[in-house]
């Protein structure tokens, strides 16, 4: 953990607090609908597919595939300037939603759309864990 975390912090609200608290406990959960089974991101007060308020939080597999990716060479963002070039990826979770994330344990030249990945709980600061992803080991 860094002594002082200089990167942007998530905007935690009553809607997304369970998500961030789950990550801090190394649990990957997203809202899901008891009515239609839909799983979605970002958190919402009702199901964005059927508008049911009968919703809860489902534990997810933490697996997905790279939907797209970029390597950022220029950023004005505090805390990330020392990291360039760094990757940003969009991962499609096996359950359907897509998340913006960073890939770890991979060189930019090896990143491809469709690459299978799994979650890595990255404890970046006290009470802040990010959902990063790494390539799924062959055969898994």
């Amino acid at each position, binding site marked *: 953990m860094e002594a002082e975390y*200089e*990167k*942007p*912090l*998530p*905007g935690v*609200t009553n809607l997304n607090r369970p998500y961030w608290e789950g990550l801090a406990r190394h649990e990957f959960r997203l809202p899901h609908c008891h009515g239609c089974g839909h799983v*979605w*991101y*970002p958190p919402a007060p009702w199901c*964005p597919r059927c508008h049911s308020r009968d919703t809860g939080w489902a534990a997810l597999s933490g697996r997905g595939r790279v*939907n*797209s*990716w*970029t*390597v*950022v*060479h*220029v*950023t*004005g*963002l*505090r*805390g*990330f*300037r020392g*990291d360039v*070039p*760094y990757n*940003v*990826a*969009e991962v499609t979770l096996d359950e359907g*939603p*897509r998340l*913006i*994330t*960073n890939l770890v344990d991979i060189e*930019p030249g090896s990143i*491809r*759309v469709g690459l299978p990945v799994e979650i890595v709980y990255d404890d970046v600061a006290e009470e802040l864990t*990010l959902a990063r992803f790494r390539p799924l080991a062959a055969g898994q």
Partner: protein
Amino acid sequence: MTTLELKDRAAVCGVGHSVYGRKLNRSAIDLAADAIGGAAEDAGLAPADIDGLIVSMGTPYGADADTLAQVLGLELKMYSQTWAHGRFAATCIQQAAMVVAAGMANVVACMASLSATGVRPGLSTQRRRRSGGRGPDREAAREGGGGHGQDPVYGIDAPDPGAAMATQAYFERYGATSRDLASVAVSFRRHASLNPAAVRRDPITVEDHQASRLMAAPLRLLDYPQLVDGAACVLVVRADHARNLRKPPVLISGMQPLPAGRDEFIWTYPGFGVAQQARRPYEAGTQPVYRMADMDRSAIDALFTYDGFSFLVWMALERWGFCNPGEAPGFTRDGRIEFDGALPMNTSGGSLSEAHLMGWNQQVEIVRQLRGECGDRQVSGAEVIQWANAYGDSLIYRR
């Protein structure tokens, strides 16, 4: 109940703009006055004739509508403003067309003014320097996420990485390359070289594009827009009113509003399959704007689109059915989108080379093309021009 018939009911009677450039050291209100005053003069009207004002952007990068009215002494029957985001040029002009058709105001100035690189009241650049970078962009910090796919927690608060990811998905899906994208930048720079108002007028080649630095890969510097200070204004009046003014009217024949939802994303059309979009085959079909204008794509003499990144030109061509998904890289080759090509696009140089004014400079250029005022870059015989964006809104203008 029948729907309100708006085809050809409103017209643009005047256009104006300030000088465009980086670090002009001029306030957004100052720049706005040049655009509003220039548009009024173009129409043969005075600022006192303006009784409606619709502003795109506003604080923190530009001047707000209520402030402009007070400071510039405009007596307005109506004003409105979209939030500080760039996608609302057509939204503003469509609202103006409805306002004048309904008789709520007679002369509606639609505009944006930006002082993004220079005078920023209340923002200390000293503090920004000390901290070794800035905090997240306001747009990126919106609850529920930034509109361009930003997530500052993972290192993206600016629009470009989201556009880069859309581009990368397209590249890998269709086998297109950065070299293919270069032809868009090269064509628009040729237009800018013929436009005295453009901020970048030096011609470029595909090799120049390929040698320009990577920003958010695969996008390079020459895929990026010219972020400048400046202002541009379009005056909208009833069509019958416009016929009595100084310049020939440019009629607003078709309008299609800006859609939103989980299948809409600023960089890609529905079904493309990024952000939370479903992934499914896309067919442009007959878009409402053509039905309203009572014409089809074959009537379009030139196509203008928001080119905040070169890739958006491909998205617009495919969204609006000028070519099928995956065909845009071929479509934009060999000067086919240049002013003397098969489908002229963004003849002022667009955001990529004239100025990034969120599409407002493009509205000015469309009107001038339809009046035949564009000199060396005039599209010969231009009668119908469409403004149509990757994110789904459109206007059809005709002379």
